[in-house]
């Protein structure tokens, strides 16, 4: 990958990390606090009020079950929401300097993933200390899964950031869309709780595979293989490739619309 050796890409990522997370103390604290607070609220609502149970997960309590899926989702959704404006926010740069524009959304996604993955690792450690049995060997499976999720997020970020230049509504439509996606992904619940009809529908959502695989690897120690292990990563790569082609086709015309 030429990207990893690209100095401009390094600069953009470190700039994104600094402005978004490290510039002020609250930014950094917020990074951990915000998902932690949401996690606490969801845990309270679902364990105390709704008395949610997880039938298929013997011995795993609700909070780790939720946390393992929730952090990667946060990275995924936040990276897309953040990078939707990556092009329009850098209009001055796009119109004056010739450089590969795709580096802007890609660096935003990378910065978001780097920061949230650090948080994810911390959460896993905390869960272990609180007595949850984390399958550390499962990281060998979880890391490729997260990598494919990163590729998927990068593809969607390229698509939305390019679309946002032409259709200004994208930034408005995206947050409710991500909320909808959040609830149609088995993060707060387990897909095994759904009636069969809906369980097969929800399997069409690629994010279902991601969160379930992470739980399989890290919590349940379930390393069985299925056809989805081939389909979803391939689909993610396809989305990335198609979005990159779309982005490059548009990028010469960004300036006309900014």
């Amino acid at each position: 990958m030429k990207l990893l050796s690209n100095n401009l890409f390094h600069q953009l990522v470190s700039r994104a990390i600094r402005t978004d997370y490290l510039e002020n103390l609250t930014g950094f604290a917020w990074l951990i606090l915000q998902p932690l607070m949401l996690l606490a609220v969801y845990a309270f609502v679902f364990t105390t009020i709704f008395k949610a149970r997880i039938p298929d997960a013997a011995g795993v309590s609700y909070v780790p079950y939720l946390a393992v899926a929730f952090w990667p989702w946060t990275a995924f959704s936040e990276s897309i929401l953040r990078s939707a404006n990556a092009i329009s926010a850098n209009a001055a740069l796009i119109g004056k300097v010739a450089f590969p524009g795709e580096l802007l959304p890609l660096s935003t996604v990378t910065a978001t993933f780097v920061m949230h993955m650090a948080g994810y690792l911390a959460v896993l450690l905390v869960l272990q200390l609180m007595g949850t049995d984390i399958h550390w060997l499962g990281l060998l499976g979880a890391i490729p899964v997260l990598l494919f999720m990163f590729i998927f997020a990068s593809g969607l970020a390229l698509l939305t950031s390019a679309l946002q230049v032409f259709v200004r509504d994208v930034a408005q439509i995206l947050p409710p869309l991500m909320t909808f996606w959040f609830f149609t992904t088995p993060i707060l619940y387990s897909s095994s709780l759904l009636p069969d009809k809906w369980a097969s529908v929800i399997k069409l959502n690629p994010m279902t595979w991601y969160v379930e695989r992470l739980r399989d690897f890290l919590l349940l120690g379930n390393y069985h293989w299925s056809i989805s292990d081939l389909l979803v990563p391939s689909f993610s790569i396809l989305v990335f490739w198609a979005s990159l082609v779309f982005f490059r086709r548009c990028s010469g015309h960004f300036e006309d619309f900014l």
Partner: protein
Amino acid sequence: MRPLVRLQGISKFYPRVHRPGERLRAFAALMAGREPQDGVEVLHDISLEVSAGQSFGIIGENGAGKSTLLKVLTGVITPSKGSVEVNARVAALLELGAGFQPEFSGIDNIKMKASLLGMSSKQLDRRMDDILAFADIGEYVYEPVKHYSSGMVVRLGFAVVAASDPELLITDEVLAVGDESFQKKCIRWIESFLAKGNTLLMVSHSMYLVQKLCTKALWVHQGRARELGDVFPVTQAYLAYHEEKNALEKQQRHAHDGGSGLYCVRKFTFLGHSGNEDPVIRHGEDLEAELILSSPDGRPPVALFGVMRADGTPVYGVASDFDGITPERIDDRLFRFRIRFKSLQLLAGSYSIRGHAMDPEGMRLCDSSEHRFTVSGQSREMGFIHLPHQWNGGD
């Protein structure tokens, strides 16, 4: 010589994208590969070939499409029609501080700008001292760029561009911001850059700079290439166009206010040279001019004469009140001034002389008129004026 840059039939059409509907339609047209329905054509069928080692000035009025042309050249925008071919390591300085993040320090922005120009971090480490020395803004490099003056921003930008070792430098009227000594430094740098066989493409409104740095020029007028060729004929045609435009505007202004309420130039002529041709004066001859001014309130106005070289460099100026001259009164409102420059010491070349009408206090310039003249001569002296001198010593 291999062409470094080749533009063929470049047109650029900006779609109208103000309302959401227009944006969608333009976007749909773009996706379908069609021409957008309505919009503004900024460039029309421009072709240009630049060989290695040439220096090209791009001139034209505001809004003529010069900057758009540079953007097409650098690949920032895609032309609607035509092809762009650039075979060189390009460094472009299209706007001062493009790519600078105001919140970050100068050092951080140097790193960013350098990476935008394709420098690796190792290369930057080696050249950092050169950049800081060239920019010469001292401890300010550790301050956020938002506290910089525009001159400091351009210093930083140019310093990084200079360090990036380009083969083709593209600049868009950025030098105008720097102070005198920095401008000189940049010009010296560009001259040595050109002497090494590199190539320059610059947009400027300063004909002086264009003539100094460029060998070729392109005059862009309303999105079209109006003239293309050697720098002197093109810039002179461009200046002549402006003269005409100004004269036309002045006529209209005169017609508008009927010449009243202001001190006006009524007549400005050379004495002893009849006809409409620009007079030719031999070096050492006298030059005599007559200026008739009108005064709306009957008070005698002040006349100001200025002599300048064809490129606008001032040579000499003198006003009637400097010398305590009172004009000859022709009638209630008309006054005649005559001036004789004895044994004219200007060297051969093209010059112009302006006669200005000023208010009686000599404070406000109210009206002007200009004539060109040519000085002929055989002397090999350099410059534009003969300084009386004598050589001392020796046998």
